[in-house]
Each structure stands twice: as structure tokens, then as C-alpha cells.
């Protein structure tokens, strides 16, 4: 059921389950009571559902959308028992996630068959960009791909060292011009390095920046342009990293990063914590950008491909 299962040792998993048990019996208990013997959706059920969704950071607008659709669906189809209502609810939310015209990726397929495939990673401070890059590189490396990491965060103290350590853990190539150098030049040179050294994948790190800093957002557009200057079709992927603990502000993050760089995919990190990351539902829906990866820990193997069903299940756990 849960995508966390695989990664928790037994003890921790039990703790997690204990915590979740309470919420679980709450929601489904009330669900059963609310629908018993009724053919329409009960008000108290909707109230309960609202509370679950908002407490998972789904946000008001998306919550309203889900409630509306659920009622519509029920009016059209009717339902027989709690299980069926439960199923309708889940598929309603999954449907919301499907409308951005993407299917869940099965594995770590590269976003393009062109070589090198260039991935630019962006996001606000501390969300887990560098860690996600390390984990992603490791996945590609497992597939026998030749990978280079580009140290485009030339601003935050010791950011270059951090990425370098990740490249050593992965056992892949690393390109840097050092701290306080022009990140657009680093990006350009990383692509050049990848081309000259026949790398399959180049992943370029960037400094964390708040989406409200106009100049830094302009810098990001410039980084992207300079990649295209070296390779016209690149970057093949712009990956926006979002932290699952972030609330509604993630929507503004998605808006501004999309405007600056045409984000093509999302990664949702820190799902091993108690935050549910529900804001990603609305973001994926509103900006038509698929969630591709989730981070479930700090270890190299703790990255997973996103699965809609499992994610929706986790909201109700």
C-alpha cells in the first residue's frame, strides 16, 4: 500500500503505522458511519473529507474541486457501500492527477533519447535539489549510463563540495568551475563536457532561490538559455524540486519557476516525514506538470518514481 514500506526498517515502520493508525481509523470510521444506508453523499462525510484534504496541504481550491467532482460522480453513478464510495473518491483524485496528460513513469527512463540528455534542477533553498541530483544520478548509473554532475550552485557555502561528494558516492563524473563563478558558464561548460566525454546524462545543480527574487529568477532563465546555446534541444528536462513540508506557498513557487524556466517535471522530497505533500495535487493539476519523483530519505537509494495511486492512498492513511 504505502510507498514508504520498502524503506523503513521494521521498528520505524511500526512507529509510523501507529501514528497513522489513528488517522486511518478516524477517517474510514467516520466514512463508514457517514454513508451507512444513504444514497447521496452525506454532509458530515464531506466535512470530514474536507478536513483530511486540507490537513494534507491540498489547499482550498483543489479541495473544492475534489468535493465537487465527487458529488457529481456520485450523483451520476450512485454507490452501494463504503468501499465503493472510497473507490470513487480515490479515482476522482487520481483523475485530477492524470489530466496533465502523463502516465506514471515506470522506471528511471531518461526524458530524452538524445545524448547527452540534459537535466536542469531548480527550486527554493533547502528543498533537496542537490540530494535529489545525487539519487537520480545513482539510478542512471545503475542502468550503466555515463553521468556528469554540473556544479551550478556557486553561491551557497560549500555547495560545490556537497555535489562533489555526491558524485563520488555515485561514482560519476563531476564538472565545476569553483565557487562564485558564473552559473550560466558552468551550465554551458557542463553540457560541453558531456558532449566531449560522451556522457549519456548531464544533471546541472543550481543555487536555491526564493521565487520572489526577480534578479535570481532572471539568472535562472539565463542559465537555461546558455544550455540551449551549447545544445539547441537542451535542457531536455527542467526538474522543479518541492519540499513536501511546504504549504500553499509551493503553488507560488511552481508559478514563478515555471515562468522563468518552463518546468517539465516535479520532484517531491521529504515524504518520509509526517507531511503529506498534498499541495502537489493542485500544482500538478494547475500547471499541467507531472510529478515524476519522490524523495523518501537522505540515502542514495531513497528516491522513487511517483505513483498516483500510492500517493492518493497515502493521503488517507
Amino acid at each position, binding site marked *: 500500500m504505502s510507498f514508504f514500506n520498502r524503506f523503513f526498517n521494521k521498528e520505524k515502520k511500526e512507529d509510523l503505522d501507529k501514528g497513522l493508525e489513528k488517522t486511518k481509523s478516524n477517517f474510514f470510521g467516520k466514512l463508514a458511519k457517514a454513508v451507512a444506508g444513504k444514497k447521496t453523499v452525506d454532509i458530515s462525510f464531506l466535512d470530514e473529507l474536507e478536513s483530511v484534504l*486540507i490537513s*494534507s496541504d491540498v489547499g482550498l481550491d483543489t479541495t473544492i474541486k475534489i468535493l465537487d467532482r465527487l458529488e457529481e460522480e456520485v450523483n451520476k453513478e450512485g454507490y452501494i457501500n463504503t468501499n465503493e464510495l472510497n473507490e470513487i473518491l480515490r479515482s476522482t483524485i487520481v483523475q485530477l492527477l492524470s489530466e496533465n496528460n502523463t502516465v506514471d513513469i515506470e522506471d528511471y527512463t531518461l526524458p530524452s533519447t538524445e545524448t547527452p540528455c540534459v537535466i536542469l534542477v531548480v527550486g527554493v533553498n533547502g528543498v533537496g535539489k542537490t540530494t535529489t541530483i545525487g539519487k537520480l544520478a545513482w539510478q542512471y548509473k545503475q542502468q550503466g549510463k555515463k553521468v556528469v554532475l554540473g556544479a551550478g550552485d556557486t553561491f551557497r557555502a560549500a555547495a560545490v563540495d556537497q555535489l562533489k561528494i555526491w558524485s563520488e558516492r555515485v561514482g560519476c563524473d563531476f564538472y565545476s568551475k569553483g565557487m562564485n563563478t558564473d552559473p550560466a558558464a558552468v551550465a554551458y561548460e557542463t553540457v560541453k563536457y558531456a558532449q566531449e566525454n560522451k556522457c549519456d546524462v548531464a544533471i546541472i545543480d543550481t543555487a536555491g532561490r526564493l521565487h520572489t527574487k526577480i534578479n535570481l529568477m532572471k539568472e535562472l532563465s539565463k542559465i537555461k538559455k546558455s544550455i540551449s546555446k551549447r545544445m539547441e534541444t537542451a535542457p531536455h528536462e527542467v526538474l522543479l524540486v518541492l519540499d513536501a513540508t511546504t*504549504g500553499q506557498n509551493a503553488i507560488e513557487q511552481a508559478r514563478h519557476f515555471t515562468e522563468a524556466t518552463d518546468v517539465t517535471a516535479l520532484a517531491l522530497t521529504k515524504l518520509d516525514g509526517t507531511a503529506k505533500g498534498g499541495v502537489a495535487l493542485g500544482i500538478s493539476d494547475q500547471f499541467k506538470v507531472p510529478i515524476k519523483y519522490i524523495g523518501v530519505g537522505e540515502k542514495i537509494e531513497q528516491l522513487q518514481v511517483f505513483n498516483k495511486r500510492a500517493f492518493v492512498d497515502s493521503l488517507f492513511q
Partner: protein
Amino acid sequence: MFDNLSDRLEGAFKSLRGENKLTELNIAQSIKEIRRALVAADVNYKIAKEFTDTVKDKALGQENVLSSVKPGQLMVKIVQDELTALMGGEAAEINLKGKPTVILIAGLQGSGKTTFSGKLANFLKKKKKSPLLVACDVYRPAAINQISVLGEQIGVPVYKEEENKDPVEIALKAIGHAKDHNFDVVIVDTAGRLSIDEAMMTEISNIREAIQPEETLFVVDSMTGQDAVNTAKAFNDVINYDGVVLTKLDGDTRGGAALSIKYTVGKPIKFVSSGEKMDTLDVFFPDRMAQRILGMGDITSFVEKAQEQFDEKEAKRLEKKIRKNKFDFNDFHDQINQIRKMGDIKSLLKMIPGMGKLTRNLDIDNNAFKKVEAIIQSMTPQERANPELLNMSRKNRIAGGCGQTINEINMFIKQFDEMRKMMHKMSKSPGFAGGAAGVPGGGAGGGRISRARKKKKRR
């Protein structure tokens, strides 16, 4: 996102002009609006409910007659006062007793602990203290380098043991080192950890036990959503921290997590951190935070933002003019131009109290202000500097000059006056802001906050 809460509350009350008492029934809609605003600001769902219940009780206890005070304004005031009180009256100082004073820093991954540690050291150094930073994040790659670089930047020594994987031992040795070398404050930076990671929570508890800090600070990202309560509580249960630090407030988050945390654990917010530079550390102002959470505009933030873009002198001049209620059409025109340069018009507009109204019906892009600009350009220099001059004949001349109707001119001037008044008011008393006409609300009360809105949509 919501515009100004006061606008919305006025709207919710529009229908009951003539009634002279606040009743459960006639405030139901505005209570709902408040809850929505809080939830949209990431205040925990349950806390938003409880908070609005308190507000409701306060409102119902008011003897005020509706015809004498604008009920929306009354509600806003109740909400704001209540929120400010909850956020903590006085700014809380940190405890600098002890020889040396030991300060322990803890929080989730990526919340901004290391950056804050550096800022705190810098802050204390400027207060003529001699701080020592301690690198106890032995896990994250290059974490030790990061704090070393920061220390170098601000000229504060960093105690580190590259090969040692035991943070308890490192912290203890660092304190010994501080005693031997006459440091008077020791700031212990630790690794980020999840509240459900038992091993790591035991570790931080052990560190605390061993070093007995004078001050334990919990660092939290101001963009945190509904989970803030769980994490704040779990950390408090384990390390019983003395204060909270809110980080990344230089973004546009409404920061409802601050309320959730304060409400849940009752610990004071001691610092706010708002930037990547080492000097961007502030003490916490409850009233500013209350306004921010309510999305009421924050003249201080606006002026600060402006400062970033144009020179300090200009921003000071502007602030002074607002305070003296001398903000004129020239300033307004300058603002439009500056805002254009800053690029992100929408988020900036949100910061100016009352500005939203002037531009509500315009599609906000770079041409959004054309009409308004045309009006201002048709004024004489004296009129621009003295809005009070505008009488009927002058308005008629302006209308002719810019090719707009006298109604449009009147409307603009009325809105300008309102905005000016509001800016003035906000600049003087951070605890209060008013509004005039607003968005009509509607719908009934009840438990679910999304319901009324849904009805509205279907109409």
C-alpha cells in the same frame, strides 16, 4: 489567494446594513472568510477553527451598534488584535547568561539552521560578544565545510572535528575549548532530522542532556504547511526548546505556520531570518506577522522591498511621506514606474494596503496602469504634488485632457484618497487597517469552509 481580508469582511457584511447587533447568524459568513484566509495562509485547519470560535465569541460580546462602526472593520480589528496577542505581546530576548552561554540549534532538514547559526553568531559578535560556532552535523555531505565557510565570512571561529562522528562528544569538547579560549557564547549547529526518526531524535536529546544549553532554538521554515504543528510538538516533547526561529521570510509566504506553532507549543518566536546574507536577522514583531498572515498588506515589507530596488534615501523619503500623509500623485506615479522595473507587479501590489482596489478590475500586466497614468499626466505639477487642490473645475479639465469621463476621474481620485488614508493609517498603527467597499460574499454558515464558496460558484 485572497485579497485583502478587510475587503472580504466588508463584503460579508454588506447585506446587513440596518441590523444593529452582531448575531451568530449575521457573522457566520465573515467567520468563514476568516477561516479561509487562515487556512490559505497555512494555519493548521483545526487551529483555524478554534481561533475563529474565539473570534466569534469576542464579536458576539461586542456592544457596538452596527450603524456606528463598520462591522467589517470591527471584525478585522478583533481578528487582528486576537492574532497579535496570540503571537506574543513583547519581543522575547534570548538568554545570554552562563559562562559560556550555550545555544543549541535544532530543526528539520533544509529549514535553514546553519545559515541561522551564522547569522546569530554575526549578530552576537556585533553586540561585542565573542561567539564560537560548533559543527555538529556529521551526516550531510559538506555540512562542516558550509559552516566553516560561513564562519570565515563573518570572522567567527568554528569548532570542528572532521573525523569524529559523535556529535555529543564534539559539542562537549567545543564547550571545553570555549572555556579555555574565553569564548562567551557557543552556538551548536546540528544536523537536520525528522521528528519521527527515533534514532536521530534520541541523538538530539542526548546532545541537549550533555551540554545543558541556556537556550535551545527550534528553526522552522516559514513556508511550512499543515505539518508544522506535528513537527513543532514532536521536537518540543523531546528537547523542550525555549524559542522558535522563523526562516525564509523574505519570500511571499503568508507564514501561518508561525501561528500554528505558537498556538500549539506556546513558545515565543525569538528571531526571524529573511535572506541569505549574514546580516538579515531580525527580532520578531507579532503585529507585523499577524498582518502578514491575514494578507492585509505590510507597508514595512513594501518599503523594504522598495529599498532593495532603489536607493535607501528614496525609500526613506517615501516612508516619511506616507507617515506624514503627504503621499501624492507624483509618488504614486513613481511607484508605478518602480513597480514596472521590479517586474513582479502582482506580488508587490499585494503588499500595498488598499492598492489592490485601485487595480482590481484591471488585467495586471505592464500596461495595467495606462489609464491611471493618463489621468496623472493631465494634471498640473501643482495638482500632482497637492492632491487636495482637485476641485470640480480642475477635475473637468483633467477629464478633457486624458479623454476619460468625469466619473472615471472621480473614481480614481476617491480610490487614491482611500489608499492614501489606509497607507497612512497602517504606517502609524500597525494594529489596524480599514477598508471600504468589497467583494460581495454570500452563503450560509456551517462546519465546512469550502461550502459557501461552492454555492457561489454554482449560482
